[in-house]
């Protein structure tokens, strides 16, 4: 299966959820926000949200800014 994550094409595991995908990418779920196909996924729903073939994900975090 393929997904576009932060603009990069990536192979992802079958039956991925947002939670499992973050784990595979070694990203701590508490620090990030995830947008799946243009819709923000609330943190409480990471485990229950399936990531399908061809999904587009944005994974963002807070950084310093003015």
């Amino acid at each position, binding site marked *: 299966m393929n997904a576009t994550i*932060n603009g990069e094409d990536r192979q992802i595991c079958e039956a991925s959820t947002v939670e499992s995908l973050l784990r595979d990418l070694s990203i701590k779920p508490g620090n990030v926000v995830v947008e799946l196909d243009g819709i923000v996924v609330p943190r409480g729903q990471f485990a229950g949200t399936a990531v399908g073939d061809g999904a587009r994900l944005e994974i963002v975090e807070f*950084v*310093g800014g*003015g």
Partner: protein
Amino acid sequence: MKKLIIAGREFKSRLFVGTGKYGSNAEMAASIRASGSELVTVALRRVDLSASAQEDPIISHLDPNRVVIVPNTSGARNAEEAVRIARLGRAAGGFDWVKLEIHPDPNYLLPDPIETLKAAEILVKEGFIVMPYINADPVLAHRLEEVGTATVMPLGAPIGTNRGIRTREMLEIIIEQARVPVVVDAGLGLPSHAADAIEMGADAVLVNTALASAGDPVKMGKAFAMAVEAAELGMEADPGSQSRLANASSPLTGFLAGK
């Protein structure tokens, strides 16, 4: 001066600060503490997927009981992107405040007024407390106020230039006409620039580069705090009027030349 209240929240300090470009999170946190600021801005960025270890999240260095955390929409090139970023910021930390900035021009980072107004309308309807970064345009400031932004934030000079207030004439008109707090944002490099803005009647200033690019950001945070406080106190003291001709401070009669 009139109390500074934004969206029902009172701010004792008229100095707002950004969190970008510091050498470390610890330095940033120390500088903000020294500045006494109660409102800080942060940005959102894509996570670097190739990075082996994630950095300490910046939010963990900010105390939400002491400061209002305001995500900005930096990186947005149009209204649609800005709205998306604002929604992400809200989802990330539950932050309803947003510093709306849309500056597609890479050289001067000047804000796009049309996209900014469009985004402001949408975000206000979605319940955001919108603080738009704008050029010093009194008409735009008025239009934003009409759609319900919580403040207007005209620039003193382009972002990160440390050049002080170069938009004086238009800024004066904005300050004269605005019914929402005016925050002079961008371009202030010295404590005197911040004092200048407050003495002009601005309600607050927002600085980032001035502190982060100083050799000693902690000392500079303190310096800006003192300058803003001094300017505020001076304005409360009701300054004497200006005149073109000299007015003697010492008696000029009744001495050697007198009869």
